[in-house]
Structures are given as structure tokens and as C-alpha cells.
């Protein structure tokens, strides 16, 4: 068994996509993932595809959490994941997406489309984010329980 206290903390990237400027979702997810024991790189709102891909390639995160609530998540997500997966270093990094992905409420056909395009998990609006992300983290093959520490305030500089 790995001693959790000696394991280096893993990094998770939290990000929105090119068109979405909402940030409360990102601040919330950062705190949540820090409570799950990760170091979080929060890329913020309106992240262009190229920037998202290059920052992920540099950070080599344990996984990437994409959040979109403005109703363009489906379109932005399908475009992004193609570019993301075609980068040689990012073909297998787990990526999840969640939020309010379309303009007309939940749509399971759309969720399926996102999964087939390369997202590992699509979280619909009614899933509890804390339970969902904890379960996802635990399901990862190399899942070593990351070191737990009290959460810090997001982005306080």
C-alpha cells in the first residue's frame, strides 16, 4: 500500500472553453478538487482551444475538468476534444465535462455524442458534483488517494 502522506500531490486542470465567461462554477470546482486532495490549475473563463491544449500538455494533469454553463458546451466541447485528443501528449489524459451543456436543458443523446468524441465522462446537471468527481477520481487506474489538506481560498493573490 502506498502511504498517502508521502505521495506527491497530483494536479488537476479546471477550465471553461472558448465562449464561456462564467467563473463561479470554476471557483467552486477548484475548491472541491482541492478538498479531494489535488493541486488545481484553474485556467479561468473563455479559454481558447490552443491555450487549453498547451497548458494541459505542460501541466500533465491527473485529469482535466471542463465546465460549461452558457449553453454552448456541447458545440465547444465537440470542437475542443478533437484538437485535444490529437495532441501526442494528451491522447490518454482523462477529461470530464459538466455543467449546463445546451440551451434547452438535459439531453442524453448529446451526452453520448460527447463521450464518443473522446470525453471520458459527461456529467449532467442533476448529478451532485462532489459525489461525481470523487467517484471519478477513485475510478482512475493509477488512483493513489491524494494527500488531504484544508482547502485554500481560490485565486487569493
Amino acid at each position, binding site marked *: 500500500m502506498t502511504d498517502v502522506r508521502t505521495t506527491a500531490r497530483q494536479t488537476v486542470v479546471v477550465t471553461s472553453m*472558448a*465562449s*464561456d*465567461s462564467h*467563473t*463561479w462554477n*470554476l*471557483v*467552486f*470546482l477548484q*475548491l*472541491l478538487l482541492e*478538498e479531494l486532495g489535488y493541486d488545481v490549475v*484553474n485556467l*479561468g*473563463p*473563455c*479559454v481558447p482551444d490552443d491555450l487549453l491544449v498547451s497548458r494541459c500538455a505542460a501541466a500533465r494533469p491527473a485529469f482535466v475538468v471542463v465546465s460549461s454553463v*452558457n*449553453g*454552448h458546451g*456541447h*458545440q*465547444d466541447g465537440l*470542437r475542443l476534444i478533437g484538437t485535444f485528443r490529437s495532441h501526442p501528449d494528451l491522447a490518454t489524459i482523462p477529461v470530464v465535462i459538466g455543467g*449546463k451543456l*445546451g*440551451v*434547452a*436543458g438535459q439531453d442524453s443523446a448529446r451526452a453520448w455524442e460527447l463521450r464518443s468524441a473522446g470525453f471520458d465522462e459527461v456529467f449532467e*446537471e442533476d448529478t451532485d458534483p*462532489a459525489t461525481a468527481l470523487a467517484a471519478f477520481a477513485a475510478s482512475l487506474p493509477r488512483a493513489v488517494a491524494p494527500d488531504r489538506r*484544508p*482547502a485554500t*481560498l*481560490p*485565486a*487569493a*493573490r
Partner: protein
Amino acid sequence: MSDPQQTAGFGAYVRAEAEAGRLVVQPRMGFGDPATMRAGLAATRAAAARTVGTITVDAHTRVGHLAAVESALRDGVALNGYPLVTHPVATTAEVLAGIHGPDFPVQVRHGSADPLGIFRAMLAVGLGATEGGPVSYCLPYGRTPLVESVDNWARGCELLTRLRDQGLEPHLETFGGCMLGQLCPPGQLVAISVLEALFFAQHGIRSISVSYAQQTHPGQDREALAALRRLCRELLPVSDWHIVVYAYMGLYPQTHDGAYRLLGQAAELAVDGGAQRLIVKTAAESQRIPSIEVNVRALEYAAWAARRPQLPPAGATADPEVYEEASALVGAVLDLDPDVGRALLLAFRKGYLDIPYCLHPDNRGRTRSYIDADGRLRWESTGGLPLTALPRPRRRRFGSADLLADLSYVRRKFDGSER
């Protein structure tokens, strides 16, 4: 009403209604499909209320990502607003034909830190009313550096003034009274709204509205409107200005009842607080883009709520706390530079203005807020803000559940499930 240029504008329409004792109500509405957009404007006009129309621009256009608009239109993907820059001028002219005019002005709402393309598209179809500002359409709306936004907005204002050649008086509304929608104490909201109005005036805009978004406490909100009015009277160098209230801009109640009660409270705030216009939220707010029908119901409900007998205005007894805070912030910022745009840049650099929880790199991020036992929004840490009031000591731990609890305060209260 002798000047024809004045009667053709958005500001003149709202002021004339106010003189007749009527609150103007307005939707947040935008659809990608031109026929739906036209139907929405027509339904807004026909609603049983004094209304003005709204064209909300989609999020790809806001960030200048026009290729994404084109692919959405091609693939039949629904957008979250009207792609004003992409649809041909003739299409937008058809959307507006016979609907938009002096008796039903239409405003473009967009959220762009680089609005020149949107303004050019407005000019091409004779639309003269819009909203935003160098700060409020930058920090909450993406990653454009503040210095670029200030420059874009200065040029944008000047571009809008060309509408006068078409006999239209351009109208600009500050979005500064909203800043991230929630958890920004009212003193700073009022200050940014006033500073953006001064910025508009400095760049040639003569018809202005100043916004304030309903927050967590009705009494504090009334004080905020009183502060906003007083500061505008003291400082605004234009005579054509009015106050616009936004129904709550944070996590909205999920129950039908809760959503309507919160909207009703916003209408009361607008009337008691002496505002001339109200932008509504609908029962669909917590879930999805509202349909035309849901929007019309919200407009009619708000107009009804605004006509109900009101409480006597809080008047002279109002606590001057919000005024003092807003006035201190405005004064300190204006002292930094005679050019309001440069003063705003310096203010954010020094932390004289600092938005709680804002992720934008040009925001210092040293302030925090909290909701006190009475429901008032207060400073927990003031960072570099030029305020003397003592903030409450910092909470030692603040996790995701605490953030969600603060964000959901209003939702909980109106959905009736306290705590």
C-alpha cells in the same frame, strides 16, 4: 419634447414613461434564429406592460469567435443569443421592421470587451442603445486585458456618437452595477456603475443609464439605489440619465413560486428606489434560456407588481453606509487621474477597486465578502480598497460547501427551504 433627435432615443422613451409614472420593463432575450428573434421582439412589444425590446448577442460573437457562429448556423446548433455580426444587415433589418421605433426602442445586450464589430452592426441597422462598460464587460467576461478593454470602449463610445448623423441619440447603460452577479458588496457596485457612466460621458455619450442588480437584502438595496441617485446627481455631467434595476443576477430560485416572488421584490425595489426601468428574470432562469412565453409572463408579472401599493419610501432615515462607501471609492479613483479610463486602470492596479472572487488577472483578488446574520452583503476583507470601515475577521476555512451556501442564500430564501 421639441428636439426630434431626443425623441428618437431609448433614454427619451424611458424618461417620458417615468414622467407618466410608469416603470419600463425589459426582458433578457436573444435567439439565434432571426424568425424567433423577431417573434420575441413582437411579443415583448405586445405584452401587457410598458416594455422596451432586447436583442441579446450570443457568446461566440462576444469573444469575436465568428467561425463558431458560422458552424453553429450551418449545423443547426442553437445559440444562446442573436449573432448580430454574422446575420446579414438585411436579415436584421427584417427582424426589426415595423417593430423597432421611437415607441418601442430596442437595446442590444452583449458582454464584449471588444465591442467595435457589434457597434458597427448596430449602426448599420439604426440601433442606438446598448450597454456595458470598460470594467463590467471585461473582468466578468473573459481574459481580455483591462487596458485593451478601456481602449476598445473609448473607441466604441466615439463610434456610437456617429449615430447622431442618422438623427438618433445613442444610449449607453453601465453594467457595473452587476459585476459577477453576486457577492460584491453594494458600495462597490454603485461606485463602478457611476465611474462607468462618467467614462461614457467623457467619451461623448449624452444619454446614459446606470444599473444596479438586486442583491441579498431589500433594505440595503434601497440604500444602494439612493446612493446611486445621489452620486449621479452630484457627478454626472449629462441631464438625460436614468436608473435601471436588474432582477437578481445570481443563482436563481428553482421553484416557480420562489422565482416569481424574487421578481416581485425586484419590481418593488425598482419603484421604491426610484428607478425608471427594470430588467426581469424568468421562472426558467435557474435552468435554461427562457422561451418567449416565459419572458412575456415575467414582464407582465413585474409590471403588475410595480403597480401594487408600495410601502412608504425609506426616505431620509436611510442609513448612509452604502453612499459613504461608494462615494469614498469614486472619490479615490477619480483622484488618480483626470482621464476616467486611466483612473480605472490605476485603481485596479492599486487595489482601490477589487472584485471578490473575480479570476481576471487584472483584478488583485485581495477582497472577500460575506452575508451577515441579517442578510446584508458585507466586506470580510477589504484588501487595498480605500475604505476605513473595519471588516470582519477572515474565516479560517472556507470550502466549496461554504461558497455554495453563500451563492445559494437568495435561492434558499425564496425556495422556502431555509438552511
